[in-house]
């Protein structure tokens, strides 16, 4: 079953002093997200990611189209008890402590009082804020607020979680923890829909991704499919500080870093390189086919979109 089905949602804002000039923020969007997957919604800043999330959360109203979340109409209030949402750069009631805030959100989400206490404690542990739970949020750093935001999104044990730029403001450790948390959510059978413009996060985490640019969907697919364009080249990595002359002679593109050498060669020369490394008594570390990175795919999609827009104009 699909966790999310977006059926032509579109949004046009009326801008200008008299609000008569239409500005399209989202072209009709058709998208399905399967239950239990981590789905990445990628796009540069201003692409329409946040607009899509706001439409799904009922924070803005669509100009046309509809959506189904967990098999029900997205406007059905009962759906909201089963979804969690982390907005971009979240801001919370700063006069509350982290514990009070989570308690309040638990109340609003309808978590029964007995379970609420346990859930709040567990989530505070999960997001690493147990020690500062009694501190008012006005004293929190940006990264700590992001953790609170993640905590409130998963507090009521939702089946589907929406994260808008969840890594924003986090240090490398924090990003790692969020990645682990997302994977844990997936293991628990939950669906995670997250928007990001950080492609390495999407590549590391997502089962599938969609790319949006200027309010239009540019591509959807499994990360492996999108990045599986083998370019007929392989990457060979071995221990060493020098490139043997026989490998240089093959025209390999080599990079030496510390005690490792990384060479990109034509896949037909793979055996010759291995033989050369044996002869030179070098220790082979890895041979992997070179794939298009998600970043390369992303950039290509955006460039193609820009080109076609230029031609139309």
């Amino acid at each position, binding site marked *: 079953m699909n966790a999310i089905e977006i059926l032509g949602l579109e949004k046009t804002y009326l801008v200008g002093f008299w609000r008569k000039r239409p500005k399209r923020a989202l072209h009709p969007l058709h998208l399905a997200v399967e239950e239990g997957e981590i789905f990445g919604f990628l796009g540069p800043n201003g692409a329409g990611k946040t607009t899509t999330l*706001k439409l799904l*959360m009922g924070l*803005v109203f669509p100009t046309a189209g509809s959506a189904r979340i967990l098999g029900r109409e997205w406007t059905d209030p009962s759906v909201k008890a089963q979804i969690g949402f982390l907005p971009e750069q979240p801001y919370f009631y700063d*006069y509350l402590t982290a514990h009070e805030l989570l308690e309040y959100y638990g*109340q*609003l989400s*309808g978590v029964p009082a007995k379970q609420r206490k346990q859930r709040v404690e567990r989530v505070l542990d999960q997001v690493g804020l147990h020690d500062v739970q009694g501190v008012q949020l006005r004293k929190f750093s940006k990264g700590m607020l992001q953790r609170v935001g993640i905590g409130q999104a998963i507090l009521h044990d939702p089946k589907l979680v929406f994260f808008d730029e969840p890594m924003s403001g986090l240090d490398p450790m924090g990003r790692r923890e969020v990645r682990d948390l997302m994977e844990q959510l997936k293991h628990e059978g939950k669906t995670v829909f997250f928007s990001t413009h950080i492609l390495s996060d999407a590549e590391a985490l997502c089962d599938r991704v969609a790319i949006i640019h200027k309010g239009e969907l540019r591509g959807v697919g499994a990360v492996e499919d999108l990045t599986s364009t083998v370019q007929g080249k392989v990457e060979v990595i071995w221990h060493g500080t020098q490139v043997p002359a026989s490998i240089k002679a093959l025209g390999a593109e080599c990079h030496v870093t510390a005690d490792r050498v990384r060479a990109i060669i034509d896949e037909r020369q793979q055996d010759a390189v291995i033989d050369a490394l044996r002869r030179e008594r070098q220790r082979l570390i890895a041979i992997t086919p070179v794939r298009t990175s998600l970043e390369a795919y992303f950039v290509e999609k955006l460039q193609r979109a820009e080109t076609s827009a230029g031609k139309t104009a």
Partner: protein
Amino acid sequence: MRTRIAYIASNTFREAVRDRVLYNLIAFALLLSGAAILVGQISIEIEKLVVINLGLTAVSLFGVVIAIFIGIGLVSKEIEKRTLYTVLSRPVRRWEFIVGKFFGLAGTLVVNTFFMAIGVFAALFYVSHKFVRADALILVALYFIVLEFLIICSLALLFSSFSSPLLSAVFAFSLFVIGSFAEDLRNFAGMAHGVSRWLATGAAYLVPNFSAFNVITSIAHEQPVAGQLVLQNTLYALFYATMALSGAVLIFEHRDLK
């Protein structure tokens, strides 16, 4: 549904308390105790009259200022700071949010009025050294002041649902001032002719009639308040606040939270 409204109301109350709104009580207490001491020394026979007039007027003005300055930010501040996103993405309906905010602010003002009322009675006891039966009339004046607050809260929320805090403050305060002279406006409408009569009558009945709630002077003179006026003012305040709140809900239900 009722519990969600109660949670939102209680959080609104907590916000007011933590933002030190109730600190105004200190200013009020200083004002009143200073006035009571001063009046006790300079006025003869009219100390009580002055204390009741001054005390109740201060209760009313302090409350109106709080109602307007908190009320105008109740919705717009939540939109601006985006705290609303994590509330409305839960099973909370927009109208529940508005109603919860209203009750939270009204609750803050009731608590505030309660403490200020204690101050008024304390000052009264200081100047007259005893309570008489007619002093109970002060409770009626306080009740009317609270009814006035309900209307102002609902109007502040209405303006806050579509306008910036600054404009909301201007609108709400203007309506409070005009509403305080609503009787005069009605009298003027009665004397006017033609289009101006229609316009003045329309305006006179559209603005909240706060002058009907002002019984401070008559109570200070120990004149009783008719039961009919109590009923009439209660129904009027409830009707007006409900209408203003419905307007706020109607606007907010269709508003995009950009």
